[in-house]
């Protein structure tokens, strides 16, 4: 699978999730609190709600009514791992996030790992699990394929075991910019491009997401996302 293919699949999934749950995992604040203006400006992902939504969805898919999701933080020696997902086979899934991440990255990583669960439970594509004896191979492929993902090129294919990771990563990014805000974000992006006093950092603060993710969304995801939503 190449980047464009992964992006297409990820947008179908992220947009289906938003429509399925009615965007109930998004928290928004009124733009003008003391007025009759009902517009909302600041939207952020409520990770707790998203965790419950994904958990309930997985219970339906897997018929496992005992399934629970637990979040833990961990202080890694080198801080190279931002998040990890572990299923212990006892109806519990643990999502680890790096203790040294700031709030925005922590929120993103939690959502990404939740999306990983959601993506893996969708049978729209196959994914390859690594056996325990292949862990070094898994590490090599994660590093290599993530490099391909971040450069967003269609020259190299993702390693088979990484495809669902790429889809989950891209779907998560799309999720951070709500459907009803996409045109607004696009307009702000034009202001950024024209250097009219608004920056990617400002956008990151608005949506409580890492600036790296804002830049990636604007550069590689926004156009296709808006096209699929018929937003012009």
């Amino acid at each position, binding site marked *: 699978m190449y980047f464009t293919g992964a992006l297409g699949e990820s947008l179908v999934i992220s947009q289906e999730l938003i429509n399925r749950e009615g965007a109930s995992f998004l928290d928004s604040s009124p733009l003008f609190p003391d007025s009759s203006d009902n517009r909302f400006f600041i939207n952020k992902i409520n*990770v*707790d709600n998203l*965790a*419950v939504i994904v*958990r309930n969805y997985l219970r339906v898919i897997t018929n496992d009514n005992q399934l*629970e*999701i*637990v*979040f*833990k*933080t*961990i*202080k*890694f*020696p*080198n*801080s*190279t*791992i*931002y*998040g*990890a*997902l*572990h*299923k*212990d*086979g006892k109806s519990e899934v*643990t999502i*680890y996030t790096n*203790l040294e991440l700031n709030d925005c990255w922590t929120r993103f*990583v939690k959502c*990404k*790992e939740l999306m*990983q669960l959601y993506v893996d439970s969708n049978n729209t594509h196959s994914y390859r*699990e*690594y056996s*325990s*004896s292949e*862990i*070094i191979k*898994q*590490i*090599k492929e*994660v*590093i290599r394929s*993530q490099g391909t*993902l*971040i450069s967003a090129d269609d020259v190299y294919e993702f390693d088979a075991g990484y495809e669902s*990771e790429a889809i989950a*990563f891209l779907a998560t990014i799309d999720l951070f910019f709500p459907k009803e805000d996409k045109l607004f974000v696009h307009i702000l992006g034009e202001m950024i491009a024209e250097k009219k006093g608004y920056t990617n950092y400002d956008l990151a603060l608005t949506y409580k997401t*890492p600036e*790296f993710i804002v830049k990636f969304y604007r550069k590689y995801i926004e156009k296709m996302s808006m096209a699929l939503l018929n937003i012009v």
Partner: protein
Amino acid sequence: MDTQTTKIRESVVSNDSRSSINSKELIELAKKLNYSSLRFMVAPDKAISEEAVIEDTLFLLKNIDTPTDAVKETFSTKGR
């Protein structure tokens, strides 16, 4: 060989040995734990080395079943 060159050679050999030991220990621990699935996301916004990721993965596996002070639970869907 002068002292400074000797120290540089020792440093290079030491790093290779540490990397090799970590990989071996990681494979053995992974087999011992026989985990059904482990997924992880490495930092997308900075340069990382394979050796550093191996070391972090090893640390993760050591803390999965027997959490230490390095691991803290922050949220659970139990009861929700």
